C-alpha cells in the first residue's frame, strides 16, 4: 500500500492507495504553527485505515521551506560572492549580508583571478562581529570549476571550524550565477530547520514501526528519499502545485495537451500538460522575487477559489479574494463562488436552498436580481480563468529556441481538454470547458488528486554533463561531479553518453534512487568542434540525461 500526504496552506490531504483504488482519504485543516502535527494526524488516520497492512512507501509534500522563506524566518546567512568581471556588484541584491570577494573563473573553467586570503579574513572578522554562523559561497562559473569555492570553504573552516558553509557548485551546476547564488543562499538559510523537521518525521515513523520508504515530494514533480532531502531543502518548495499537476497526470495518463485547473478554497492553480508531460517554469522557481535553480512547474496562481466570498460593497459585487469559511451550501455563513455556480446551473450541490437564500440577500442589497448577480459572478470567474489560461499558452509559445530545428518545428499549442481537480472543480470546470469549447475531465478522485499525485510519482533526477576535451575536463550540473577523461583526443558523442549514464548512476546511488535509472532518457545531445586557426583542437559536449517525472511501476492507473 502507498500513502501520499500533501500539507497545503489551508488543508492537509492524505490518501491510502492500493491496487488502483483509494482506500481512505483524509482531509484536515493545516496547523500552520505545527506542520508536523497536521501531517502526523493525517498519517495516523491513514495507518489505522490500513489495519496493519504493509505500507511500501510514504510520500510527503510540505510547505515548511516555502513558509520559512516567505516569512523570512530562515537562519541569518552571509553570502560570499565572486562575480569577477561583468555586471556591476549592485546587480546582486539577494541579501544585505553580501561580501564581494576577489577570484574569477571563465566559461572554460580557467581560473583567471586568484582569491585573496586577507580579504576573506577581513570578511570573516566582520561576520563574526555580526554574529552570523552560516555562509553561502558563490563564484561565477563555479559550475565549470569549483576550486575557488572549495578554497574559500577551506579558509572559512580554518578561521572557525564551527562556521557552516554551503558552496554553490554543490547546490547546482547549471549556468546562471545569480540563480545559483540565490539557491545556495536559500539552501543555507533553511537547511538547519529542514533537517530538524526531517529528523522529527524520521523519529515519528520509527515510533510507528513503519518499514516504509519515506520520500519527500519535490517542485519538479518527482520524489527524493528523506535522507537525500537533508542537503537539498530548497527542492521541497512549491511541491503542492507539483502534487496537483502530477495527480492530474495520474488520473488522465495519456499524451494529450491539457490545462490542469486546481480549484481550491481560496486560490486556483493553473498548469499545463503538453503531450502528457508537465511544463516547467523556464526560469526556475522564484523565491522572494529571486529566480533560483530549483526546477519547478510553470504554475499560474490566481486569488480565486470555490470559497471566495461574494459580497456587495459600494453598490458593486466583489468576488473574493477572501475566504470566510465554507460555501453556504456546505454550511458556511456567507455565499461563495461555489454557491453561485450551484444556483445558476442548478447543480444541486449540498444545501442548494441555502445557497440561493444567502445569494438573494446579497442581490437585494446590491439591487440586482438573483439571476443577474449570478450571471455577473460566473462571467467574472470564467473570464479570469480564461485569461490566465491564455497567458500560459502564450508564455509557452514564446519560449526562446536556440537551434534552427526548434524554430522550424515549433508548434502552436492546441488544447485538447481541461482537467479539473480540487474540491470546487466539479462546480466550475465543466462551465469553463464549455466556454473554451474543449471537453472537461473531472475524475471522481479529483478532490484528492494532490495526495494521489504525491503517493504514486517516482523519484526524478536530471543531470547535464559538460565535457571540454581541450581542457580535458568534465563537470555535471547536479551531484557536483567532475573529472578528467581517459582519452580526450578520441572522445566521441557515444563516449559522452556512456559517461553521462555513469554519472547519473553515481548521483542516484548517492541519493538512494539507483533502481530508477532504468527509466533514464537523454534530453540533450550537443557537440561543438573547437577550431583554432583552421585546426580542430577539441570538442565540447553537452549531454543531458534524466529520470523524468512519471509514476512508480506499482501504479497502473485508477480503476474507474
Amino acid at each position: 500500500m502507498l500513502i501520499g500526504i500533501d500539507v497545503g496552506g489551508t488543508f492537509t490531504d492524505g490518501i491510502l492507495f492500493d491496487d488502483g483504488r483509494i482506500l481512505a482519504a483524509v482531509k484536515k485543516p493545516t496547523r500552520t504553527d505545527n506542520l508536523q502535527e497536521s501531517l502526523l494526524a493525517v498519517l495516523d488516520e491513514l495507518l489505522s485505515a490500513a489495519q496493519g497492512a504493509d505500507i511500501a512507501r510514504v510520500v510527503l509534500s510540505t510547505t515548511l521551506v516555502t513558509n520559512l522563506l516567505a516569512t523570512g524566518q530562515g537562519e541569518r546567512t552571509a553570502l560570499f560572492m565572486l562575480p569577477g568581471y561583468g555586471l556591476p556588484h549592485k546587480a546582486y541584491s539577494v541579501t544585505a549580508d553580501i561580501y564581494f570577494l576577489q577570484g574569477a573563473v571563465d566559461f572554460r573553467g580557467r581560473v583567471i583571478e586568484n582569491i585573496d586570503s586577507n580579504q576573506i579574513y577581513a570578511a570573516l572578522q566582520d561576520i563574526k562581529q555580526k554574529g552570523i554562523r552560516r555562509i553561502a559561497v558563490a563564484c561565477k562559473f563555479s559550475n565549470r570549476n569549483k576550486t575557488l569555492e572549495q578554497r574559500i570553504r577551506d579558509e572559512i573552516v580554518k578561521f572557525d571550524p564551527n562556521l557552516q558553509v554551503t558552496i554553490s557548485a554543490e547546490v547546482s551546476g547549471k549556468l546562471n550565477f545569480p540563480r545559483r547564488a540565490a539557491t545556495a543562499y536559500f539552501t543555507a538559510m533553511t537547511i538547519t530547520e529542514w533537517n530538524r523537521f526531517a529528523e522529527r518525521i524520521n523519529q515519528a515513523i520509527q515510533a510507528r514501526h513503519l518499514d516504509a520508504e519515506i520520500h519527500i515530494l519535490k517542485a519538479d514533480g518527482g520524489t527524493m528519499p528523506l535522507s537525500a532531502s537533508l542537503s537539498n531543502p530548497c527542492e521541497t518548495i512549491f511541491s503542492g502545485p507539483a502534487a496537483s499537476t502530477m495527480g492530474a497526470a495520474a488520473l488522465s495518463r495519456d499524451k494529450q495537451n491539457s490545462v490542469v485547473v486546481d480549484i481550491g478554497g481560496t486560490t486556483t492553480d493553473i498548469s499545463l500538460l503538453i503531450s502528457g508531460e508537465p511544463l516547467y517554469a523556464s526560469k526556475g522557481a522564484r523565491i522572494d522575487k529571486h529566480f533560483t535553480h530549483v526546477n519547478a512547474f510553470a504554475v499560474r496562481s490566481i486569488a480565486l477559489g470555490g470559497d471566495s466570498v461574494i459580497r456587495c460593497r459600494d453598490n458593486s459585487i466583489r468576488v473574493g479574494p477572501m475566504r470566510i469559511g465554507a460555501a453556504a451550501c456546505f454550511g458556511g455563513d456567507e455565499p461563495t463562488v461555489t454557491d453561485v455556480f450551484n444556483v445558476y446551473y442548478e447543480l444541486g450541490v449540498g444545501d442548494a436552498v441555502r445557497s440561493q437564500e444567502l445569494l438573494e440577500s446579497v442581490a437585494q442589497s446590491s439591487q440586482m436580481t438573483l439571476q443577474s448577480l449570478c450571471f455577473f459572478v460566473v462571467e467574472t470567474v470564467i473570464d479570469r480563468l480564461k485569461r490566465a489560461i491564455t497567458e500560459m499558452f502564450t508564455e509557452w509559445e514564446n519560449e526562446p529556441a536556440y537551434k534552427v530545428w526548434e524554430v522550424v518545428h515549433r508548434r502552436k499549442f492546441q488544447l485538447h481538454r481541461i482537467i479539473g481537480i480540487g474540491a470546487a472543480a466539479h462546480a466550475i470546470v465543466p462551465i469553463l470547458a464549455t466556454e473554451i469549447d474543449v471537453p472537461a475531465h473531472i475524475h471522481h478522485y479529483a478532490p484528492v488528486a494532490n495526495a494521489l499525485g504525491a503517493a504514486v510519482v517516482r523519484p526524478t533526477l536530471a543531470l547535464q554533463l559538460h565535457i571540454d576535451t581541450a581542457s580535458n575536463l568534465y563537470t555535471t550540473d547536479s551531484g557536483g561531479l567532475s573529472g578528467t577523461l581517459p582519452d580526450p583526443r578520441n572522445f566521441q558523442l557515444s563516449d559522452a553518453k556512456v559517461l553521462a549514464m555513469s554519472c547519473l548512476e553515481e548521483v542516484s546511488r548517492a541519493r538512494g534512487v539507483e533502481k530508477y535509472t532504468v527509466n533514464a532518457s537523454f534530453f540533450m545531445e550537443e557537440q561543438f568542434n573547437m577550431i583554432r586557426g583552421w585546426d580542430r583542437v577539441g570538442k565540447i559536449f553537452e549531454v543531458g540525461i534524466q529520470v523524468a517525472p512519471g509514476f512508480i511501476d506499482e501504479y497502473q492507473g485508477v480503476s474507474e
Partner: protein
Amino acid sequence: MKPTGILFFPAFDWAISPTHPEREERLLYTRDQIFEEGIMDLPQIREYQPGLATFKDIARVHFCVPDIEAQITEAHLVSAGSALRMADAVVTGEVKNGFAIIRPPGHHSMTVVHGNRGFCNINNEAIMVEYLRHKYGLKRIAIVDTDVHHGDGTQEIFWDDPDVLFISFHQDGRTLYPGSGFMEEKGGPLAYGTTINIPLSPRTTDDGILFILDKLVMPLLEEFKPDLVVNSAGQDNHYSDPLANMCFSAQGYARLNQRLKPDIAVLEGGYSVESALPYINMGLIMAMAGIDFSNLKEPDYSPHKFKEPAGNREALQRIVDTQLRVFREREEKIALTRAKSDRPFRMEMRNIFYDTDYIHEQQRVEVRMCQTCAGFRTIVSSARHPSGREYSVGCVSIPFGACSECQTEGQEAYRTLQQGNTQLVYLQNKIADEYRVIDTRSKQETRL
C-alpha cells in the same frame, strides 16, 4: 522604463563547413557568458523568440538566382526572421531598443544573389529595413555598420536610396576583405552623400573609433534625422580577432553603443569566439539596457594595452572634415546632377566576386535619372554558378519612393527585358509589395 529586447539565436545546428569561422561554436561561449550572468532574468531585459522570415520578406530586397530556395537554408530564414521579430518589438514600442544576436550574418549580401559572399547569403539588415518601411511606413533610416569589414552588400542595396543613410567604418579596404569602402564611394547620382565610408588604419584603438563616432557619425545622424538607427554590429574590430587587425575592446564597444543609442543592433561578423565575443556581447547588451558596464572587461585587457598609431588622429580629422562636407553638400550636388542630366538613364558596369563560392558576376546597372524621385533601377546580371550552370537574369526594382512615372516605366522595363536574352526576369515592386519572376522560355511567371 521599458526593457531592452534581446533575441539570441546562436544556430547551434548550422555551419558553412565544420572548420569555417561561421560554425556552431561561434556563439557557444557567448551563450555561456550571457546565461551565466543571468542577463535574461534582469527586469531591464526581455528575451524574444526567433521568428521565420517569409520568401516575400527576402524578395523585397533580393533577386535570388535561380530562386530563393537555391540560395538559402532554414537557418537564413530564422536569422533574418529574428531580426524582423526584434524590429517589430522595437517599432511597436514593446521595448526601448533591441539587440538581435543572430547568425548567419548578412552585410556582404548584395541585391542580386548568386551565392555566398563573405559568409553571407541574404542581408538581414536590408530585409529588416524594407520590412519596416513596408509594414510601418517608416521612411528615413540610418544604418551604422560597425563591422571591421566594409558593409559592401548593404552599401550596394541602398546605393541609390537617398532615404537610407549608410555609414560604414572599417579597416581600410587596401588591407582587408572585401577591398572596398573608400571615401570616393558616396552613393548613386540621385542618392549622393547618403553613403559615407570611413576607412580606418589597422590598429586603430577605442580612442580613434570613439573620435570618429563623436565628430562624424553623431553629427551626421543629428542632421539626417532618421526615424530609426540600426547598428550593423560586427565584433571583429576587437584586438583579438583572427581575421582583422584592429585594437578595439569590449569597453570600447559598450561606449560606442551607449553614445550611438541604436534602436536596433543586429550582430554581423566577429570571429574571436572565446576572447572577444562573450565580453563584447555583454557590453553591447549592458550599454543598450542602460546597465553600468564599468566592471566589464576581457581577462587580458588593461586600459594601457594599446596606443593609437602615430598620426592617426590627424588622418581621422581629415576624414571627418571631408565626409561632413560631402554629406552637407549632397542636396546641392543631386540638384546639379538632375539639371545637367542629358540622358534618361545612368549606366554602370560592375564585376562582383563571391569569395566563399568563388563566383564572378558581371552586372550592367541602370538608374532612371528622374526629375521627381530617385528613379527605379534595372540590373542585368550573369554568372557561372559552382554547379557549372551559367545564369543570366534581368531585374527591375521599383523603390518605395518611386514616382508614378517611374512605376509605370519600371513595369514597362519588366516587359521589355522579357524580350531580351536572359533566362529569368524579375520585378520587385516595393510600392505594390509584389514580386514576380518569369522564365522567359517557358513564359511561366511566379508571384509573391
